[in-house]
């Protein structure tokens, strides 16, 4: 599969010699700035889910991230520890992910009130992330290898990528477009389309700040264009390179979260 998409990319590269950047490189860079900057990191996230009618729901959580490959320039396997603090009834609920590039991710959910650790079956990652308009895949990152990418437009500030799934049955979109900032390689906008060419889902990076020298999205928004609902995530107290030990990301720590790290 990999060589084939590469082949496609080469053909495309030949067909559109006007673009100054290699598509594969572009995808790789965008993926890196979105999920791999720094050697691990931490953020306090405040999520506001709102309806078309204006009713809102909040979810507050802390995300810890560790990259398996400590060489910070690579995009490889990762681990995420998502610790919920609010609303009060889900306090101490944990969502743990072992993200794998070559295989299905492992995911666990810890529900403290039932004292229950459950693995979440591999498979569909395009389900809602705790009731928000973000999908699980949006939070941990979609594997670029699952799509064919082509550079369709270049503006003064952005590269516009069109990505088409290799296995259309596994996803609900027909294709998506990514607006990648030329200097920072941050995808500032992603639009998901239906087969009829209508966009129905929109991701926007609302605010980008420099944290420890890394351009970081500190506010993002996912909108459901059909229902008019949207979810905003604000990232506070972002820290990179804090050296989170590997054993935190194990089942044992679900029941006894590292409270100091999560403060």
């Amino acid at each position: 599969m990999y060589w084939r998409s590469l082949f496609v990319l080469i053909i495309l590269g030949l067909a559109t010699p006007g673009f100054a950047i290699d598509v594969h490189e572009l995808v790789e860079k965008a993926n890196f700035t979105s999920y791999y900057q720094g050697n691990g990191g931490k953020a306090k996230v405040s999520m506001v889910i709102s309806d078309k009618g204006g009713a809102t729901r909040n979810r507050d959580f802390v995300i810890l991230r560790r990259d398996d490959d400590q060489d910070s320039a690579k995009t490889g396997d990762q681990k995420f520890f998502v610790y919920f603090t609010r609303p009060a009834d889900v306090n101490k609920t944990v969502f743990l992910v072992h993200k794998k590039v070559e295989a299905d991710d492992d995911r666990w959910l810890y529900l403290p009130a039932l004292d229950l650790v459950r693995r979440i079956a591999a498979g569909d990652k395009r389900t809602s992330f705790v009731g928000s308009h973000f999908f699980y895949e949006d939070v941990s990152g979609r594997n670029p290898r699952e799509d064919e990418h082509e550079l369709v437009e270049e503006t003064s500030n952005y590269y516009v990528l069109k990505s088409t799934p290799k296995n259309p049955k596994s996803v609900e979109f027909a294709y998506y477009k990514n607006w990648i900032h030329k200097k920072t390689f941050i995808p500032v906008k992603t639009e998901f389309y239906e087969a009829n060419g209508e966009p129905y889902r929109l991701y926007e990076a609302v605010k980008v700040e420099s944290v420890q020298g890394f351009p970081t999205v500190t506010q993002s928004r996912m909108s459901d264009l059909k229902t008019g609902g949207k979810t905003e995530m604000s990232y506070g107290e972002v820290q990179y390179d804090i050296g989170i030990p590997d054993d935190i990301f194990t089942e044992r720590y679900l029941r006894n979260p590292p409270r100091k790290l999560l403060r």
Partner: protein
Amino acid sequence: MQFLSETSVRHPKVTVSLIGVMAIVTILLAALPSVMPEVFSFLHPVSVDTDPENMLAKDEPVRVFHNEMKSTFRLYDMIVVGVTNPGNDNGVFNPESLKKVFELAEAVKEMRWKNADGEMEGVVDVELMAPSTVDNIQPGSLGTVQFEWLMPEPPTTQEEALSIRDKAKRLPMFDGTIVSDSGDALALYVPLTSKDVSYQVATKIEKKASEFGGTEEFYVTGLPVAQDTFGVEMFVQMAVSAPLAMLLIFILMWIFFRQITIIISPLIVAMVSVIMSMGLLVINGNTIHIMSSMIPIFVMPIAVLDSVHILSEFFDRYQKSKDRYKTLSLVMDELSAPMFYTSLTTCAGFASLALTPIPPVQVFGIYVSLGVFFAWIFTVTIVPAYIALLPESSLQGFGLTHSEDEEHLSWMGRAVKALGPFTYNYAKPILLLVVILGVISAYGISQITINDNPVKWFTKTHKIRVADRVLNEKFAGTYMAYLTLSPGEATTSFEVQKNHLREKLSALGENVVPQILAEFDKQAEGVSNREELLAKLKEQFSEQLDAASDETFEAWEDAMLALETEKLDLEVFKQPEVLRYIADFQKYLLETGYVGKSNSLADVVKTVHRELYLGEQEKFSIPDSVQAVGQTLVTFQNSHRPNDLWHFVTSDYRTTNLWIQLKSGDNKDMSALVSAVEKYFAEHAPPQPLNHNWFGLTYINVVWQQKMVSGMLEAFLGSFIIVLIMMVFLFRSLVWGVLSMIPLTVTIAIMYGILGLIGKDYDMPVAVLSSLSLGLAVDYAIHFLARSRHLRAQYSSWKETVEAMFGEPGRAIARNVIVIGVGFMPLLAAPLVPYQTVGALISAILLLAGIATLLILPAILRLIEPIAFSNIRKEER
């Protein structure tokens, strides 16, 4: 009053042209804004409204609440598409049928379009409930929980097909809703942006389904489809039945009068009256509703009625003098007063409907009343003017040549003539029979069931009725009613709440407890409610939290959490004991027998809880803490359709919504359910005070029905009294006034008695007809009594008067009964039940009223002759 007809006879051309211009102007004013909306935007175009919801005023509380809740719980009006396959042992659960279901769902998603205002309308695709668009939650391998589309793609093997069935049957939300109780059929629930598009969407679905071929059957139903389809067929009905009724009336008049040219005049009267009343209705911006669509059918016979009296009289007298002006003058002299009064009473009967609390019925009453008024004016002007305009030759051979010669009388004339002596000789037995019938009717009336059901407006063989029957046999019910619960008045005092919170805080991490409590007491001073206290504490605690050392951080964090947890008490529908109460209530609902199934937040919690414990059946229960409920619900929201939760509860968890599926849309069943629910809440106190409120179309129908029944009864009694007063005034006698009310009273009693005895439901058309019978039945009595009094003065006794009465006056009444009674028969062939009911009842009412008038009145007059005619004798002297 004769002034009008005399003027018209003198200036026939002017009269006819004036009325013609009036009619044309009305047509233009009513039609132009629809034909050329840009040019005539200041006028009202024709607008059709088939929504029974509009039986209630827009600001009616129950309707306002209904719409509010629909938007709160994101509910849409839905079309139900049922799929069965009688040709396969597993029903639709085979690869081939499921492929069709899959394709149908894909096609349905695309059934949306931009309307004139650029807004999307049609199917709300994201809310479509079909096997391919809903989530299955189940334990996966290796102790995992799994969310997956129930049918992500059509199965390829029989095993896969059956596994889809088994998965759906495990989930209470789907069992009996998406998959049938019998496990062989599927249903798709198609939400619509608005009810108005349901006919369009239903037609598209039927078209798509018809392309599949094979042994599958597709049934399309649901209240919105029924209502919208009714609207479409209503117009077909209006276009067919009304002209057909007109034609039949025309044929009958021809049989009686044998002169085409003459009988055209009543038709003109009827047409112009209908044009004027319907035209004004449209011009004034009223919608054409199920009720108002019946206006022409009501106005037509009434309009013809008076003309038949004039023509009948003219027919019987013309040959005596061969002078049309003289005959006309005689006829009008005799008929003016009764015609005026009969029109006035009919107007009063219909106008009384304006007193009902139901807007479409008010409009109906007012415009029929107007139509009757127009009919009177046109009858006394057009008919005489028309006769005056006729060339002499066309009147030759018109009318009875020897009116008193029995040989030349028709069968009808002979029958009527024989009736006279009969009433004279058998007065007492006739009245005895009336009394017996009255008693039987009274019993019948006591047996009447008040009931309506929009789906039953279609005949039994109509595809909507068939779909309704099949789907309600197989599934848990296609009629939706919703019950909301919300917290009532809080019972715990602030003081108790405060102490409770303080206790909770004092149990936290030791190192900071004194500080926390000190802060608490400081903030609690002067605060009078919990919200305020919590807000103040939160502010203080979060400052402390930010400044806390690593040692005290946890304690302050726990203190903050304690505050937040306190707020959870407000989330009433996360409380385990409340959810258990709801679950018990749902069991009771099933036991009532009216409910096929109900779904609630409790079902969602129980199902997810079970799946979290890998499908253990004993875990199909509500967990014990509010946190556990909350976490179960968050788990549910990790699915493809997290927002399905908000169909059951608001995001503050302070209003919850139960979906109740009924197998019957009969108002009487819904009413019975409402009472059963009242009883349950009265007998079983919830863990904390809860208010309950119904909404949903099935419930709304009940509310307007109740209003209609009581409103109609009041309107009927009101107009009865008004008409009685008018009669007393007309005859200047209490006795004669009361007499004139007897035939209609007997008619209505027998009518409704029969309905009760044969078990026909008292529904909307039946209710409206009581006013019609009041207005029409009194007409015959007025004519009969007025003529009797008139004639009695010319004869020496009632015995002689009877002979004369059952000559020309009796024939006029009989002709009327036959013309109009038979004229309504075409309605019996209608595919819509309300029209059939109207047709059958009008015919029956007229027949009964005619018979009652011709039998009862002379029988009574025979017995009370001395009292009734005492005044006349004095006049004679």
